[in-house]
């Protein structure tokens, strides 16, 4: 067997690294789900557009048809036209431009709050599941308390304590997503902890840190990712809801929830002011939900049947 040619043949013939293989399988399974695939492209498109709009705006260049805050009172309440694609609002501002400019806020709140929630929730879940006992009991009771509040109410309470602003809305939504992460990660950690190779590595004298980061975390990654995707949808909705109530973005910020609130009084005469921001929220939330569902099915093919 010392013949190098034989060795090379055997080595290259060996099947792929399971991580690479798993990823390839995952993509293959995901692509079968057309709705999820479309949602993925929609999300990607929205992210790219919002970043382009935002970056140009940072350099003082408005690439949307109008400036998001340009007031043009004579054109107020105008319906959709070639000039104002989605119509103009009660101040004569272009709704299409405002939606494009508000997108970065919506997506940003979604991503940042879920990231922050995961940052707190995942360690809590791992500690809870790995150490068990009293630590677990204490952490899970706190999580239960957080879960006992309806999400929007909890976010409302936090925002009313911290004061209304976009940053505080992000924090509120992050707090609201912590329990979900903690519970899911705890469950996966409990299951992973019982695997024999964790015992083997423990018997070798590995420290807890090594076991957690090298052996448990990779195993709980997929539920974390799925949960995060689904939570972004909820986060977007909650953030819009808070802004709608006037607790989040303050005028004239083109936040979608705030825009809904702006048009609330004119729904009968100028429905487009609420219709388009509402549709925008719908598209984003739906896309993340379908994408998350597809991701879950692809990551865990056993669950589908």
């Amino acid at each position, binding site marked *: *067997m010392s013949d190098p040619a034989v*060795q090379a043949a*055997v*080595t290259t013939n*060996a*099947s792929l*690294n*399971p*991580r690479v293989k798993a990823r390839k399988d995952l993509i293959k399974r995901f692509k079968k789900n057309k709705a999820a695939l479309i949602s993925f492209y929609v999300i990607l498109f929205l992210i790219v557009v919002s970043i382009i709009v935002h970056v140009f705006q940072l350099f003082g260049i408005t690439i949307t048809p109008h400036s998001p805050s340009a007031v043009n009172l004579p054109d107020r309440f105008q319906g959709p036209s070639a000039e104002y694609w989605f119509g103009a609002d009660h101040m004569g501002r272009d709704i299409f431009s405002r939606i494009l400019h508000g997108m970065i806020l919506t997506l940003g709140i979604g991503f940042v709050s879920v990231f922050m929630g995961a940052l707190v929730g995942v360690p809590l879940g791992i500690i809870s599941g790995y150490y068990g006992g009293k630590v677990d*009991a204490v952490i899970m009771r706190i999580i239960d308390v957080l879960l006992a509040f309806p999400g929007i109410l909890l976010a409302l309470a936090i925002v009313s304590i911290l004061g209304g602003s976009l940053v505080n809305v992000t924090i509120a939504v992050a707090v609201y997503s912590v329990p979900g992460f903690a519970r899911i990660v705890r469950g996966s950690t409990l299951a992973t902890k019982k*695997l*024999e*190779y964790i*015992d*083997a*590595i*423990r*018997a*070798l*004298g*590995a*420290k807890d840190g*090594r076991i957690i980061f*090298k*052996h448990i975390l*990779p195993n709980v990654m997929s539920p974390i990712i799925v949960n995060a995707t689904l939570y972004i949808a909820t986060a977007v909705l909650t953030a819009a809801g808070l802004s709608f109530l006037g607790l989040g973005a303050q005028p004239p910020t083109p936040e979608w929830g705030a825009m809904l609130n702006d048009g609330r009084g004119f729904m009968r005469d100028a429905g487009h002011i609420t219709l388009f921001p509402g549709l925008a929220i719908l598209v984003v939330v739906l896309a993340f939900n379908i994408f998350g569902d597809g991701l879950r099915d692809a990551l865990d093919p056993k669950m589908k049947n």
Partner: protein
Amino acid sequence: MNRKELLKVENLKQYFPIKGGIFGRTINHVKAVDDVTFTVYEGETVSIVGESGCGKSTTGRAILRLDEPTDGKVEFNGEDIVSLSKSKLRRTRKDMQIIFQDPYASLNPRQTVRQILNEAMEIQNVVPRSERNDRIAELMETVGLKPFQADRFPHEFSGGQRQRIGIARALSVDPKLIICDEAVSALDVSIQAQVLNLLKKFQREFNLTYLFISHDLGVVRHISDRIIVMYLGKIVEIGDKDSIFKNPQHPYTKALLSAIPVPDPDIKKNRIILKGDVPSPIDPPEGCRFHTRCPFVVDKCRSVSPELETRNHMKKGHQAACHFIEEIHSGEHEATRDLRNVRQES
């Protein structure tokens, strides 16, 4: 033989709490291992046998402190493992390794063999970083694998090969004691023999001591020097291989041994068929734990728990826990229950 005591287990108890109620109070215990005492000498192979749920694996795990024992002492090389601090325990673990039953579950599927072995050496810092690759190649050859296979993942190996990887991992830190927890039970018979012979070879080469946990009496007979028979969390008989197999004293051991298949169709076997199930370890029977199924049960067995002892007709070091060893041996004490079915097997 050098009779240095390597592992001394004294009054080891492992109770698992059963929680219940709203506040998670402990309402009862599963007495998986209840007051077990034995000694393992350096360089020998001691087997623990018994049926499922008798606490043999739990004993192994408690010795390694993979589960914290409830009570008792585990002295390894003169050091009490149970009272060691976490960091000292980590260092001591270099000397005591475990090979698991399931070669599919005991290797991380995300790591290559090289990473698995490398991690073991890194944790215990046994080989300098620069020499690790050489050591990995050496280990692979020792267990009968090719060094170039080190960059493969566990799923690319067969069950027997994976078990060898598990053995290589255990050997990589130069342990003194290896606990083989049903190490060959998941393998088919021809592979079992290979792995057992490999283990025997390493014992000679590296002066290893094995604590071999198994339910397979054939395997135990092949590899052991001494045998411990457990029933429902307690040791019922302990002795060297020949004493146990040729001259079993405890009624349970006799029943257990009578279940070994004999590869001769003409031999009529006296199989002792035990009726009923093993009682629950949550609420084990009082007195002798075996009294609910023992053919020789009398009132004393139901109230007084027998101690392990050596009687006159037994060899030194052979102990059994039964009140009536001598009487049963001489035929004075006859079966009180008709559990002795003579089945003709052909």
